């Protein structure tokens, strides 16, 4: 069977009206409107095999949401092709729409004035979920996300975190095979983020759901995805293992060393990030890591030494800022 998500050379160009500030420009624009073309996504291609969770990373305006909109059939690409579960998404075949789900963290998909339970019933009818399956899934999800006491509360009275839990339940009730999660944990506290992450992970492990996840929280990505796709200014920068991201975009590693007799001068070994009498943290170029570690071990009575990749946030920041 082919991969459930395939993007090939996806490109989306928007025609955007432009006008300078000022009254004169306003009048001028009445007669001659000016436009410019913005390439939001440029030749993006990737494949996601069944049952994989992929983190889709990029700064604001990188083209993540535009790509997701093309993959869920909301936007027609300017060029390129895509297949989701074998369908061209923008043809919006009903069979495809019944088998995918889209959760946008900043959008409310539930009936605002009614309890979430009513939205779930509506989704049951939209997707034609049989009674028994619906009841079984709902009980299970409500139990796992601990929202039983909130089911009869109008959505407008729920906190952001509670509402997001309900959004996720609504998106999963029809048993989607592919789920697009666009910033699902945005604005949530750490506990709530963890709860939602665990739920997505369980769905992936138990039901084999394929997930494409965008998030600005690296904790989401590192907890859920072994593979990440990085996009910036519409272009794909990286597609590979999360662990490989540091190798590719970070030229250094961090060495932490504890010793009672640390040499006074560590500058020759690397950039000293932090130090006190018995401990030091050094930023060392990747190809010098073993050499520096050996030197430290021989120069002092080392009680602890660790070599780490820089934090993911730092690597991502480096990628996005082009440093």
């Amino acid at each position, binding site marked *: 069977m082919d991969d459930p998500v395939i993007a090939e050379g996806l490109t989306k160009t*928007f*025609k955007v009206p432009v006008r300078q500030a000022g009254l004169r420009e306003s009048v001028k624009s009445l007669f001659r409107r000016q436009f410019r073309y913005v390439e939001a996504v440029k030749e993006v291609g990737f494949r996601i095999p069944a049952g994989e969770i992929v983190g889709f990373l990029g700064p604001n305006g990188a083209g993540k949401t*535009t790509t997701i*909109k093309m993959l*869920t*059939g*909301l*936007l*027609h690409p300017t060029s390129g092709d895509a297949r989701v579960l074998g369908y061209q998404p*923008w043809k*919006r075949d*009903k*069979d495809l*729409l*019944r*088998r*995918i*789900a*889209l959760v*946008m963290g900043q*959008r409310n*998909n539930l*009936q605002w*004035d*009614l309890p979430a339970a*009513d*939205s779930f*019933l*509506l989704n*049951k*009818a*939209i*997707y*034609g*979920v*049989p009674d028994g*399956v619906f009841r079984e899934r709902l009980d299970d999800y409500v139990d796992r996300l601990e929202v039983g006491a909130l089911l009869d509360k*109008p959505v407008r009275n729920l906190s952001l975190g509670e509402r997001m839990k309900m959004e996720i339940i609504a998106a999963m009730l*029809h*048993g*989607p*095979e592919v789920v697009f999660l666009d910033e699902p944990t945005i604005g949530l506290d750490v506990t709530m983020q963890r709860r939602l992450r665990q739920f997505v992970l369980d769905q992936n492990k138990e*039901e084999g759901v394929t997930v494409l996840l965008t998030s600005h929280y690296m904790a989401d990505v590192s907890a859920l995805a072994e593979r990440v796709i990085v996009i910036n200014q519409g272009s794909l920068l990286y597609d590979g293992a999360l662990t490989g991201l540091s190798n590719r975009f970070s030229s250094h590693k961090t060495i932490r060393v504890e010793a009672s007799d640390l040499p006074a001068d560590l500058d020759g070994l690397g950039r000293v990030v932090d130090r006190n009498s018995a401990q030091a943290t050094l930023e060392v170029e990747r190809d010098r890591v073993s050499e520096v570690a050996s030197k430290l071990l021989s120069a002092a009575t080392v009680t602890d030494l660790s070599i780490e990749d820089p934090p993911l946030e730092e690597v991502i920041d480096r990628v996005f800022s082009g440093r």
Partner: protein
Amino acid sequence: MTTENRFSLVRYYAAGARTGFQRDLQYRMATFMVLVGFLIEPVVYLSVWSAVARAQGGMVGGFDEGQLAAYYVVWTLVRVYNTAFDPKAWEWRIRQGRINTFLSQPVHMFHRDFSFFMGSKIAWTILWIPIAVVLTLVFRPSIEWHVVNVAAFAIAIWGGYAVRFLVLYVMGMINFWTTRGAAMFGIVSALELIFSGRLVPLQLLPDWAESISTWLPFRWTFQFPIEVLIGRLDTTQIAAGIGYQAAWAAGLGLLFTVVWRRAIRRYEAVGN
């Protein structure tokens, strides 16, 4: 997984209508106040035309005082059935990106909106009953009750809803090209006020205006159901009116299908 799912449009309409019904009952006091607000307009019209009828010896345009009262009491119910998803709401929906959710679901949003408003009508009708009782006691409408008229009214009022829903839905599509769809809605609303029979029964307008109204959809959404219930139409006229409603619904449905395809193609190109 999803292969076990079985969609049924009838079940979906039932669920959509239930949601619309629940939503409007959730705010029953607000809904009731809107209904009370609806009263001001017909009560003013009724007072004016009753005075004119009295001044002319009891009749105006073929209506006596009791028939005028009947016209405007039924008016209040038909007005409820004439509310639908208007172009201003479309503008909001597109600007807010709400349309994305509906486009990513396997049911056309037409069915969603149509069924929601159907359920909403039921809720509003329940809240309308006490208002109708008060209006009846105050204005003493004269209606000749016939089973055929009541049955035909049940069809005509829903037919009127379908036609008006489609008129507004097609107009709502303008918002895919311009964010000023609401302005055009204002112009059409003014025409509708005159040619629907909402302002005044069409028999009271000059002949040319009444003739024009036959060829516009508005009469069939508003005055026609009222006249059916108050017994001003014979069986042939009722059948013809339902025929006009069906023709308008079919024509507008076809127009919507064509315009929707273009609108959505534009949305896919521009996005939100």
